[in-house]
């Protein structure tokens, strides 16, 4: 039987990267078909194949690590670099939208009435639901840290409780935000105010949903004994992502909700 003389993981040949690329093609061209020809077939196929690829690719990573033991410390180091770089790229993504917001709000044009918020726009009160949402995300940051400590201390029951609480807080945020979107007196079409507000908070909301899903998968894995007190990188990656989502919200709250009102 051949043994490797290095601590890296040479993965089995896998179809998911190319299928993932195809799914991206279907999703983007599906958007075009939806916008211009009112057809949702391609888009549905794209989103469905994207979901299938993600499920199977990450299922395989769990098989390779938890069930086959390929994730040596060297491999884990590489994964840590990867997750940090990915989160950094997401930070730059949001930076663009913050740039757009400040570009339009620091020097409001005559078309907006020379003021920010523009004439006729009634912004959301930052001291009502948005402040509650801030408290919710900050609390969820505490509970996810509690979860991590429980895992490293080998306290299974507390870890499950704390992680469940984190996920519930995430869902509460999403529900409140959806309600706010419904109740807002302005829409995305209401000048550059609506554009910057809904695109930035909208993408943030999408990231909350992604983060909540990641944490939910971690909860299932935690219940099924996948994590050990010393090796639980999947959970750490989810926790990093969740803290990132929290920090983005703090910047959104301070700039768009508070200063921008």
């Amino acid at each position, binding site marked *: *039987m051949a043994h490797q003389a290095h601590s890296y993981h040479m*993965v*089995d*040949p*896998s*179809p*998911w990267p190319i*299928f993932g690329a*195809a*799914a991206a*093609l*279907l999703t983007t*061209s*599906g958007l*075009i*078909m939806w916008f*211009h*020809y009112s057809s949702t*077939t*391609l888009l549905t*196929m*794209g989103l*469905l*194949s994207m979901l*299938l*690829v993600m499920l*199977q690719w990450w299922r*395989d990573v769990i*098989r*390779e690590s938890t*069930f*086959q*033991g390929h994730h040596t410390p060297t491999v884990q180091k590489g994964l840590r670099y990867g997750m940090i770089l990915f989160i950094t790229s997401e930070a730059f993504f949001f930076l663009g939208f913050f740039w757009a917001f400040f570009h339009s709000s620091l020097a409001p044009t005559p078309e907006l009435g020379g003021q920010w918020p523009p004439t006729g726009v009634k912004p959301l009160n930052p001291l009502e639901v948005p402040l509650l949402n801030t408290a919710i995300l900050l609390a969820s940051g505490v509970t996810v840290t509690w979860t991590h400590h429980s895992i490293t201390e080998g306290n299974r029951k507390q870890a499950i409780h704390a992680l469940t609480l984190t996920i519930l807080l995430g869902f509460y945020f999403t529900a409140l935000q959806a309600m706010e979107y419904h109740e807002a007196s302005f829409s995305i079409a209401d000048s550059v105010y609506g554009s910057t507000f809904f695109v930035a908070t909208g993408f943030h909301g999408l990231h909350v949903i992604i983060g909540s899903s990641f944490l939910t998968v971690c909860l299932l894995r935690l219940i099924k004994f996948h994590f050990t007190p010393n090796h639980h990188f999947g959970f750490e990656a989810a926790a990093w992502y969740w803290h990132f989502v929290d920090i983005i919200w703090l910047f959104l709250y301070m700039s768009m909700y508070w200063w921008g009102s």
Partner: protein
Amino acid sequence: MYYKFNGFTQRLVGAAASTAYNPQKADGLPVHLKRGVPDKLLYRTTMALTIGGTIYCLVALYMASQPRSQK
């Protein structure tokens, strides 16, 4: 099915052991097909969707690029 672990090695013993899913079995199967039938079904569904979709996409883009056949 009744599964029994050996107390020391923590490995399955008995009749169930040979048919049970063993992720570390050296059977030459790649990780994405390791469980056998359910993996194969999911893989084929994904492939049908992506490859079929790509062909449909190319046809749709070709049709969209024609100047006359727009509604």
